[in-house]
């Protein structure tokens, strides 16, 4: 889908208040934590323990971020939003790694790249709101969240850089797909 200026305006216009923005911010972290835990379980089930540990590490970070948001908004009642009424641009909250992108043979580099893409989506989400929201308080919150996401992007990029330029050897798949005979 081609992104347009209209898209950028729409998303900021749809989120109308600071409590609504904070509800979205919390949902982003909670969904990301839930997704990483689920993916870690998948990897454990399929004996890819290295990636399972990595996903659990990410889940722990997302849980910390969610807790920080909860503490900061402790006195602010948040709107009760049904899952389908959140105003995401895509099918899910931006920081949740897409289940469909993960395979049981996934490598460290591939897992980190999925995480990087998720962090970039979250950065983009808050960045758009910070750029076009009319309420200065919303802009301030969104800019702060965007900066946090930018820090996460840098962190993951650093981890990817530590892997070095060499592509790892392909993981052997003992049960290759689409070859039933």
């Amino acid at each position, binding site marked *: 889908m081609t992104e347009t200026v209209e898209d950028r305006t729409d998303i900021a216009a749809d989120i109308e208040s600071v409590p609504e923005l904070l509800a979205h911010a919390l949902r982003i972290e909670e969904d990301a934590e*839930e997704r990483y835990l*689920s*993916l870690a*379980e*998948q*990897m*454990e*089930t*399929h004996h890819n323990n290295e990636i399972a540990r990595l996903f659990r590490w990410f889940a722990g970070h997302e849980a910390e971020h969610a807790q920080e948001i909860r503490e900061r908004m402790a006195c602010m009642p948040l709107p*009760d939003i*049904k*899952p*389908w009424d*959140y105003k*995401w641009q895509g*099918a*899910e909250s931006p920081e949740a790694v*897409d*289940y*469909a*992108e*993960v*395979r*049981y043979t*996934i490598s460290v580099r591939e897992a980190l790249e999925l995480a990087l893409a998720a962090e970039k989506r979250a950065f983009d989400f808050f960045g758009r709101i910070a750029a076009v929201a009319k309420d200065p308080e919303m802009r301030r919150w969104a800019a702060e969240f965007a900066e946090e996401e930018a820090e996460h992007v840098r962190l993951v990029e650093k981890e990817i850089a530590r892997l070095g330029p060499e592509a790892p050897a392909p993981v052997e798949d003992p049960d290759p*797909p*689409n*070859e*039933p*005979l």
Partner: protein
Amino acid sequence: MNEQATIKRKASDYKSEVKPVWCPGCGDYHVLLALTRMLAASGTPPEDVAVISGIGCSSRIPAYTNCYGFHGVHGRALALGTGLKIARPDLTVLVMSGDGDGFSIGGNHFLHACRRNVDLTYVVMDNQVYGMTKGQPSPTTDPEWDSALAPGGTGIRPFHPLVIALASGANFVARAFSGQPNETARILHEAVMHPGFSFVQVLSPCVTFRPEQAEWKSQVHPAPVEPTDDPARAARRIMTDDGFNIGILYRGDRPVLTARATRDPAPVETLERSFAT
């Protein structure tokens, strides 16, 4: 299902401790997510929900929820679910199945469940293949799909579950896509809240035997028209769409079948006399 907004529940409250063994990348993970999000949004306590299934990858789903569940025999999930709903109308009954279990082995039950119109929701996770048994074509498989187990394709016209459901009397018909878990949760919520037999076909890709289904993500689109209460119009739309229209396609208002008796049963003595020679 009565919405119970007073108790705030999370999707994780509806998940069990059992870890799914689906292939990573399977669409069914998203369906489980949509199901638990829908239940959390409704606030229905887990003990007031029954998740019933047959056999197949998708039919593992009751074990992954902490609702009441029954992992039944192949193709018979609707028979189990119908009996349960008749006996316990207070429960929210969700019957979860796959395209093989639901449309081949359970095809006859599907027709008559639509016809009876008992108040339950039937969700079929359709990946157009028997994934659990290594990739045989299912009733919804394209006739041209060439595979090691069906060289050259089956050449058999695919089963069209949404039209069959309409023709057989289902009171609510919708199509969802697993890769849109929030939209799927909304559709499931509407299905559960609608009286009578609700049928939801969820396109749920099989990453292992149908990797080309990854393209579904870019092929699905919202249904361009509002739901209709005219089954003939709904059928025409479904027969002529591209198979990727997502949304609620039909809402009917047929009377719901319950266990109520229209008159008192005859005394046992009367029945005995009728059989006496």
